[in-house]
């Protein structure tokens, strides 16, 4: 593995499978009386969050703490960041404090890349979501959830599994990271969205696209609904919320057309009644709550593989 996790495209198939199998071991920790491992004792993980986040920050914090690392939370509100400090000066501060890993969430696409490659810090940088670009640990936890549910009936891999990612692909870092990672793992991804919510250049992602939700989901093995990110919208992307919901929302009627084994996913936070109805979100097919549990295990695996040894774990795909 590389020293930083900035993009889902940085992961080879061997890397990604190592994260999944490691996460599987981490997940069994939840059944033990003492939910703690000593692997990162004495290491410091800084959560640097320039954008609001609940589950990702808490998930990283729980993951680091279960591995016995010291965690420092740094959020934009109530810190020098709101006084106008630059990313560089913040990074130099973190470096001076001796951070071993920086988990960064930033509103600007590419901020984690800048932090990792500018020479400001020596620590590993983990991208926890940058703008509309990438969110690799979310993609890993989504892949892990699919692998747990779909793997056993498919020879333990996601090869050839059909994954539909539905909704606001344009503003979604989750969709991009998932498309990249799932392709690495051999799955067939179809992005379903209105034409206005598909990004320019989506044809280079190596995925199918469709405007017709009803035509795609009966063949899918997993359906991932995306939130409509109204805070990032400054124009008319669709006529009304109700029309969007009618054409691209997952309701009970559409859910009835799914195959028996198909799972329904959502990276959260979800807007019930918009992209997904309450009866679907609370149904047996929904693995949305499990995604959160798996998020901690996957982030533990990532932190362990990056920081657990003298250098990140070696996989067969590495140039040594």
């Amino acid at each position, binding site marked *: 593995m590389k020293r930083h996790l900035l993009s889902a495209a940085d992961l080879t198939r061997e890397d990604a499978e190592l994260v999944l*199998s490691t996460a599987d071991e981490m997940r069994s920790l939840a059944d*033990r*009386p003492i939910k703690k491992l*000593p692997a990162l004792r004495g290491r410091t993980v800084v959560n640097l969050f320039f954008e609001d986040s609940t589950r990702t920050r808490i998930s990283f914090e729980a993951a680091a703490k279960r591995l016995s690392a010291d965690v420092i939370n740094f959020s934009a509100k109530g810190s020098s960041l709101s006084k106008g400090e630059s990313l560089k000066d913040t990074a130099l501060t973190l470096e001076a404090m001796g951070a071993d890993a920086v988990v960064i969430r930033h509103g600007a696409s590419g901020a984690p890349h800048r932090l990792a490659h500018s020479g400001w810090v020596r620590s590993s940088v983990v991208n926890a979501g940058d703008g509309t670009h990438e969110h690799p640990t979310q993609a890993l936890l989504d892949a892990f959830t699919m692998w747990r549910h779909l793997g056993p009936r498919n020879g333990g891999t996601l090869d050839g599994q059909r994954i539909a990612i539905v909704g606001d692909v344009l503003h979604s870092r989750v969709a991009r990271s998932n498309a990249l990672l799932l392709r690495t793992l051999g799955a067939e991804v179809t992005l379903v969205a209105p034409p206005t919510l598909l990004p320019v250049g989506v044809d280079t992602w190596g995925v199918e696209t469709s405007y017709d939700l009803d035509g795609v989901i009966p063949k899918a093995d997993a359906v991932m609904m995306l939130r409509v990110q109204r805070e990032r919208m400054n124009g008319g992307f669709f006529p009304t919320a109700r029309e969007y919901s009618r054409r691209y929302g997952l309701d009970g009627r559409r859910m009835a057309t799914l195959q028996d084994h198909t799972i329904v996913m959502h990276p959260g936070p979800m807007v019930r009644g918009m992209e997904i109805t309450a009866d679907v979100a609370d149904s047996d097919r929904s693995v949305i709550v499990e995604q959160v549990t798996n998020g901690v295990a996957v982030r533990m695996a990532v932190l362990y593989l990056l920081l657990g040894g003298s250098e990140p774990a070696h996989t067969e795909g590495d140039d040594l």
Partner: protein
Amino acid sequence: MCAQPAAQHDHEDDGSRTVLDARDITRALTRISHEILERNRGASDLVLLGIPSRGVPLAERIAERMASVEGVQVPVGSLDVTMYRDDLRLKPARTLMPTEIPPGGIDGKVVVLVDDVLYSGRTIRAALDAITEVGRPKGVQLAVLVDRGHRELPIRADFVGKNLPTSLAERVRVSLEPHDGVDAVQILETTPTHGKEAAR
């Protein structure tokens, strides 16, 4: 297999010499199984935990022998000690192996740790740490197929298949079915390396 009456000190093509063949290993495991039963006066309260990777098939075989002797199925599990090792920071991050604690847990039980080679004792120290986080057994005992000496910590085995005096320049290679396709314990003459076998 049966056509090798005395495999001791046979030199193989790769410079290794076989010190235990399949039948020697079978006999050693049978004796260890009886010794464990004798020491603990039966198989009740016992839990066998193999240390991956080679300790797990050894623990399973010991449980099979016990089942045929006592008619009781002793719970078998595996205990990965990777994250408890004191040399974790000295090498690239290592792949984790499965930890499977039997459904009954280990609280109040006698845990018998099973490993292939006892060397520095550091793996066992890590295993003792790992056990305390899983539960509180009544006692912990250690069974190993080979004790090759050179202890760096005050740790000893309760049940030993074979004491094998070695030099630090030698490596001990344990091969077990079905993992390796053959049952054998071999000594390889080599200069000390930081390879996997040398670390045992």
